């Protein structure tokens, strides 16, 4: 006898139903047949009730999960894009500025901004196509706008702010003699350029004369 419903789901298992199955008797008389039919009817009702409840619970879970996933995912690409643009900005000044290969041309940072742009485009696409909510559209737009602003500030610093150096036209040129001077070293001792050119403290122990001097002017405040 087929006891399964149309959905093809396996027979719901419960102690009550097992008890009912145990009450079935071997049909041998009209009474026993009637008794079995009565039990079968009860079993079927019970089965439908249990299966109905299970279906309801499953549907509810599926709905809740769906809502949760939609809430989580409606604009995660926009958030990843936003975080990527922050990373693109901060990583230059904290890490990449220390290495000439990533400092002189900030290619790693522009690559990160590119990645951020891809995520922003995906996020905006998600928010503005289909049944995107107004909140989703707003949040993803604001995030994208912030991302663009971060890029703009980065470009301003890298292409403009750090290039505001005086031309220094009067600075010594190749072939010219460097003007002499005397200044205090880290020990407070007065050291002149002519001393450095003839007998610098670095070579005092070896007694050899220097071949030249590398003069580095830097901004200070280290």
């Amino acid at each position, binding site marked *: 006898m087929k006891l399964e419903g149309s959905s093809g789901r396996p027979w719901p298992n419960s102690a009550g139903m097992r008890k009912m199955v145990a009450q079935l008797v071997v049909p041998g008389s009209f009474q026993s047949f009637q008794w079995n039919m009565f039990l079968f009817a009860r079993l079927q009702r019970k089965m439908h009730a249990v299966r109905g409840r299970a279906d309801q619970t499953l549907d509810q879970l599926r709905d809740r999960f769906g809502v949760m996933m939609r809430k989580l995912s409606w604009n995660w690409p926009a958030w990843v894009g936003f975080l990527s643009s922050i990373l693109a900005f901060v990583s230059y000044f904290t890490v990449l500025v220390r290495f000439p290969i990533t400092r002189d041309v900030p290619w790693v940072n522009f690559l990160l901004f590119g990645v951020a742009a891809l995520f922003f485009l995906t996020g905006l696409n998600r928010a503005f196509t289909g049944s995107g909510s107004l909140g989703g559209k707003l949040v993803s737009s604001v995030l994208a706008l912030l991302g663009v602003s971060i890029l703009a500030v980065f470009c301003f610093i890298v292409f403009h702010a750090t290039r505001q150096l005086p031309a220094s036209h009067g*600075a010594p040129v190749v072939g010219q003699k460097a003007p002499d001077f005397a200044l205090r070293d880290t020990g407070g001792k007065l050291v002149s350029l002519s001393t450095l050119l003839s007998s610098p403290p670095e070579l005092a122990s070896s007694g050899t004369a220097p071949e030249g001097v590398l003069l580095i002017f830097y901004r200070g405040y280290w």
Partner: protein
Amino acid sequence: MAISVDAPEESADLCRKAGYTYTFLSDPNAEVIRRYNLLHSGAGVDGHDIARPAEFLLDSSGIVRWVNLTEDLRVRATPEQMLKAAKLARK
């Protein structure tokens, strides 16, 4: 050797932290920096005058053999560039 407006104590700190062993000179009033026409006026903390980044290679007679005046304070001469300049100047 290196020159900045930092006080000798500050430069001593920097040398200790970074492990520099060459001479660091202090030009607190930017007099030498001014004489070399390398002043970046008002660019320091509290509007102090400081030096713009610049590197000069002098031979033993004090003649400039190589100069690097960067246009971007992010971009400085690398040690490799300076060594290359020194090798060329030696010839």
